[in-house]
């Protein structure tokens, strides 16, 4: 029964495979048994690549004809990317954006796992804590949460710096969403898998780590990747507290030079590039967890 379920889980559809490989990744794992399928995959990827390039070309053409001041963009780009430190000696621009997102992702994963465990727990207090937390942080705007943590907590004696407030707000907010994603992934693993493992006498943590987690992660990675791309961009909300991250600098330069569109478009391009890197990482992770199945 367990095997049947596993077979169902690892069964492949060529069309879906080609689609997932074609995403943006150049070298794909290809089924060596079928030559025609190989050609199909290659042709598909080629066409996807060409379509991407044409669309990018159209976008670039449109921007090139908006009468933008490109010398200003060249002048400000190193600062926006964060290649130098801010006047008070801290990282800035895209580097700070990535720094905030990295720590928020880390804490978010931790919070997400704990909350998902609480949400699936038989203990009523754990269940209540997890559902209350997830409900509050999914049900209120991130902007409000940032301001509450930065402005309201000091009123009760907890004074956090701008950077910590930003990372905590992002972690708490996205942790609530990630918890549901994780729970969905865990629930998608058929109960037979756990039963079979238990029948083999595996200890609980081995079942969780070696049986459930790899199967669940295959389901968790795509929506979690989406969440982290979204978090990358929502990190711009912390500019409200005066952190010199990408959005802050773009707004500030744009207003001070009266060249708003130039700076906003540049920031958009940088955010997009960073998102693409995230997406590529996601594709790799997806392939990894997909492969583990195929070779078993």
């Amino acid at each position, binding site marked *: 029964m367990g095997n049947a379920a596993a077979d169902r889980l690892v069964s492949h559809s060529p069309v879906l495979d080609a689609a997932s490989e074609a995403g943006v990744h150049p070298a794909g794992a290809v089924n060596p048994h079928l030559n025609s399928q190989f050609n199909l995959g290659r042709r598909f990827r080629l066409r996807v690549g060409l379509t991407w390039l044409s669309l990018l070309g159209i976008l670039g053409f449109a921007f090139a004809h908006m009468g933008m001041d490109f010398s200003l963009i060249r*002048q400000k780009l190193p*600062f926006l990317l964060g290649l*130098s430190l*801010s*006047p*008070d000696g801290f990282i800035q621009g895209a580097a700070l954006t990535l720094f905030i997102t990295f720590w928020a992702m880390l*804490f978010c994963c*931790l*919070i997400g796992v*704990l909350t998902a465990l*609480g949400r699936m727990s038989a*203990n009523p*207090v*754990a269940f209540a*804590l997890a559902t209350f937390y997830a409900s509050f942080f999914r049900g209120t705007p991130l902007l409000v949460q940032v*301001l509450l943590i*930065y*402005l309201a907590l*000091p*009123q009760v*004696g*907890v*004074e*956090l*710096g*701008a*950077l*910590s407030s930003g*990372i*905590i707000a992002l972690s708490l907010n996205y942790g609530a969403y990630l918890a549901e994603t994780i729970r969905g992934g865990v629930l998608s693993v058929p109960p037979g898998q756990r039963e079979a493992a238990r029948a083999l006498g595996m200890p609980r943590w081995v079942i969780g780590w070696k049986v459930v987690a790899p199967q669940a992660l295959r389901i968790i990675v795509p929506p979690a990747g989406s969440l982290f791309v979204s978090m990358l961009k929502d990190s711009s909300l912390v*500019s*409200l*507290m*005066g952190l*010199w991250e990408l959005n*802050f*600098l773009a*707004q*500030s*330069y*744009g*207003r*001070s*030079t*009266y060249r*708003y569109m130039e700076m906003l478009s540049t920031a958009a391009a940088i955010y997009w590039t960073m998102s693409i890197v995230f997406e590529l990482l996601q594709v790799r992770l997806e392939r990894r967890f997909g492969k583990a199945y195929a070779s078993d």
Partner: protein
Amino acid sequence: MNARLTVLAALALSLGASLAVAGSTLDRVQKTGVLTNVLVNDYPPFGFIDSSNHLAGFDVDVANAVAKRLGVKLKLETPGWETIVGGKWQGRWDLCICSMTPSTERAKVLDFAAAYYSSPAVLIVNKDDKAIRSIKDISGKKIGVGTGSSYEAYLNKTLQIPGAKPITYSFTNVQPVPSDETVAFQNLALGSGVRLDGVVSDLATARARIKETGKFKIVGTLYREPNWVAVDKGDDAWKAKVAATIAALRADGTLAKISKKWLGEDITKENF
């Protein structure tokens, strides 16, 4: 679940949480030797980030002069305007040399120590506009203002500047359109009446914008707008110290010099 709470608390602490330091601003500035001034980072020529990526402008120079006279180091921070004007700084910041106009509302949460410059509010329209020649002509028109600004209060006829003459309003039924001021000017640049008919803002910043973009013109001066140095509520010794420092900088000509450097004229004379 206690373990989870402990983990969260430990995370918070490791991220640099510290308990609010009670005590007066003056003590803190003297003890640490650092003066933390907040200002606006996108308000040229008063505060902006210059081409070498440093904060610069009239407010920055005044803050530097104040720190120098107090014999302390200056630290600049640029939080969102709404976090500054809300008060309750909790010891995060000591001073706001940030082009703030006092109002009775703001005076409830902040103390105003000293006036340091005055720049009138003006009405700005698209350069091709022919219908609006003075403030009387804005009746029934859509006028953009910065959200939460004193100009918004002016259009709503609720602006009271403590210590100043009551303001007279010579328009009726204006539609104030509060938004981001930069967005308001972008809208006005699209043409008269497309999205906005005019914007109410400050003379010095409007002049800088017109010089740079050439898309607008000023059609009327509305009222005198004193800008004060603000401090958090409740430290009278600090407030007096700041007031004395500003008075000294005015007396020795420092303020006038800074004003001429950034605006080409002296807008820091007393008698606002």
